[in-house]
């Protein structure tokens, strides 16, 4: 972004920038390193050993964590995978449709609906848990993945609707105005013009939905009671018990395992997150 500068100065600046970022990275990554180190120690020494130095690589936690529960751990990863894929697809479809309506269409009561949409995320969820549970129970959906997925297909995540509204409003109107005057239908404009232009927003929504759904403990807890239906967060909790000993080693080991998909999704997903707008020659 800056104009041309003498080489030496810019190199110095870049080295300084990297040094700063690496220092900051250490602060950010410390908990993960601590978790990784703890997962490589026997449970009974985790809390009695300070520091991050490992004397031996103790891999039993991984073996034990993978096999200690009623099913091998990949079973729970698949369960979580089903829920997460459903949630991501649902959110991308339904939230972008709603966002287009709010951002580009002038229909009656639009402001009212928008206000109601924001209000739905202002009420603390603890007081709607019970009524919502009764709704899902009436539909016979308790102990299925539906309560975790179906709402996403119906745009209940106002966060993402509003996010996409802001992004669509940032797209210059000239780009779709021309198509409108040519008489293109809204669905065509939406799929042909708007969607390709809001890839960063869609990527953001996909990544967040993935990560939040993957680690959503409370919804799983309430709706999935059969051990075979457990998602990863529930499986991780079953290693712990507040009233007696917990299998911390296995819990940390499997936490590390369950973080791998998240990290990979983010690492590869960010390519789309930072795509420039093609029409304007972004690099």
């Amino acid at each position, binding site marked *: 972004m800056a104009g041309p500068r003498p080489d030496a100065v810019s190199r110095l600046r870049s080295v300084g920038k990297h040094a700063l970022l690496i220092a900051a990275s250490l602060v950010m990554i410390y908990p993960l390193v601590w978790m990784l180190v703890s997962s490589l120690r026997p449970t009974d020494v985790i809390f009695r050993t300070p520091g991050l130095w490992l004397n031996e690589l103790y891999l039993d936690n991984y073996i034990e964590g993978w096999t200690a529960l009623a099913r091998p751990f990949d079973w729970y990863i698949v369960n979580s995978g089903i829920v997460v894929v459903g949630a991501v697809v649902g959110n991308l479809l339904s939230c972008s449709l709603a966002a287009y309506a709010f951002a580009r269409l002038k229909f009656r009561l639009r402001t009212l609906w928008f206000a109601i949409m924001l209000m739905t995320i202002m009420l603390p969820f603890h007081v709607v848990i019970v009524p919502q549970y009764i709704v899902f129970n009436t539909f016979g959906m*308790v102990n299925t993945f539906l309560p975790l997925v179906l709402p996403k297909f119906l745009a209940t995540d106002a966060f993402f609707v509003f996010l996409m509204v802001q992004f669509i409003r940032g797209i210059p109107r000239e780009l779709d105005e021309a198509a409108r005057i040519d008489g293109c239908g809204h669905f065509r404009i939406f799929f042909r013009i708007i969607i390709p232009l809001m890839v960063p927003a869609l990527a953001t929504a996909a990544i967040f939905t993935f990560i939040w759904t993957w680690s959503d403990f409370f919804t799983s807890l309430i709706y999935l009671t059969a051990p075979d239906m457990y998602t990863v967060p529930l499986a991780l909790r079953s290693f*712990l018990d507040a*009233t007696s000993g917990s299998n911390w080693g296995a819990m940390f080991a499997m936490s590390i395992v369950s973080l791998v998909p998240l990290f990979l999704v983010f690492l590869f997903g960010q390519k789309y997150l930072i795509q420039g707008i093609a029409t304007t020659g972004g690099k």
Partner: protein
Amino acid sequence: MTTTRRQFLAMASMGAAGLGLAGCSRGDTGDGDGGGGGGGGGDGDSTSLTLTWWGNPTRNQNTTDAIDAFTTENPNFSIEAQPGEWASYWDRLATQTAGNTAPDIIQMDMAYISEYGQRGALLDLAEYGLDTSKFIEGTADSGVIEGTNYGVNAGINSPSVLFNAAMFEELGVDLPDDTTWTWDDWLTTAIAITEASGGEIIGTTAFISNDVMLSAWLRQRGKELFIEGNQPGFDVSDITEWLEYHLQFADAGAMPSASQITEEASLPFDQGRLLTGTAAMSMYWSNQLDAAEAAGGTEYAMLRYPSFDGDATTRKAWYKASMLWSASARTENPEAAVEVINWWVNSTEAAEICLSERGIPANGEIAEHISSMLSDPQQRVAAFIADIEPELGDTPIAPPPGGGQLGSLLLRYSSDLLFDKLTVEEAATGFYDELVTSLGG
């Protein structure tokens, strides 16, 4: 439940619109299922029950095994397991109860039994043939509240003080004699440890906000935590003295600081001070010995809690139910639910699978039957439970609704005291008034 997965994927591929009502759940909706053999449900001549508990991996295993054993023996039963863990168990149970889907058989805790029982959520087990004829005296009353039997003792527990004997020896401090030690001895012993270790090791973990020890202390003064009629069984002056007693520990550095107490209140079990070797004694329930020794990597001496007049027979000990078995008041098969509970507490088969993991069985014959099968720590617990029988007083009543909060109230007011935000009188009065309010609420 692989069918569920297949169904789900099939439905997901059909698109969101076609989801409708899925027949994957064991629901009673009776709607057709979304293709591919439906879920379970009653086949007319079989009884299906759900059973929920909280626990650790060991308990999850033995409970699952016991369920298998029962259903093998009684093929007309099918029991669906709903394991959980303590921290989130109560959130789920409350939600299910509110939604009328509470499991038929519920592992219950003394802190919550009144909340659920007195509000009509639990079955009167006595009405449906609960059998406690072989129970050790006093243990059958744990789940009886004002004449109704809301739960049955699933294992005996008694409060004890664990000592790190090796540490005492190392520091050259004598272990107290637990048949004659007094509350003041607890203080002097703790101070001795702190001084001998140069402050490296704290004499005792804090028990200023420990409702169990407060209960023991009150009982020896002829009071109780709670009495019939949903009210406290003590008054402000008792609490004032209790707090003053603990300020002596604080002043001598014989218990952790106010900050440390706050931190420890939310620590996981395995990080307790005694277990990490930074304190020499601590109150534990007898059935936690096994887990404590596993986490601490050392053996602990299990001692009686003290008395006022240096005589253990006056210490008003009691057998508490470490947990209880209850049944939902809305169960469709009350007799069947009680049949399972009876099997659990009275059969040698169940006992052989679960041993004393939930506490020493309350059924004396059963306890006898499994005594030789127990691990070394569990044998010591069994001996402890047997030894203290002459010292028992009346069994305390279960905390009334709102009473389960006593411990956290006491923690809040005692930290305010230790952080010098309140005087002893203010803390005692504040605590008492708020407790009375929450019992009335």
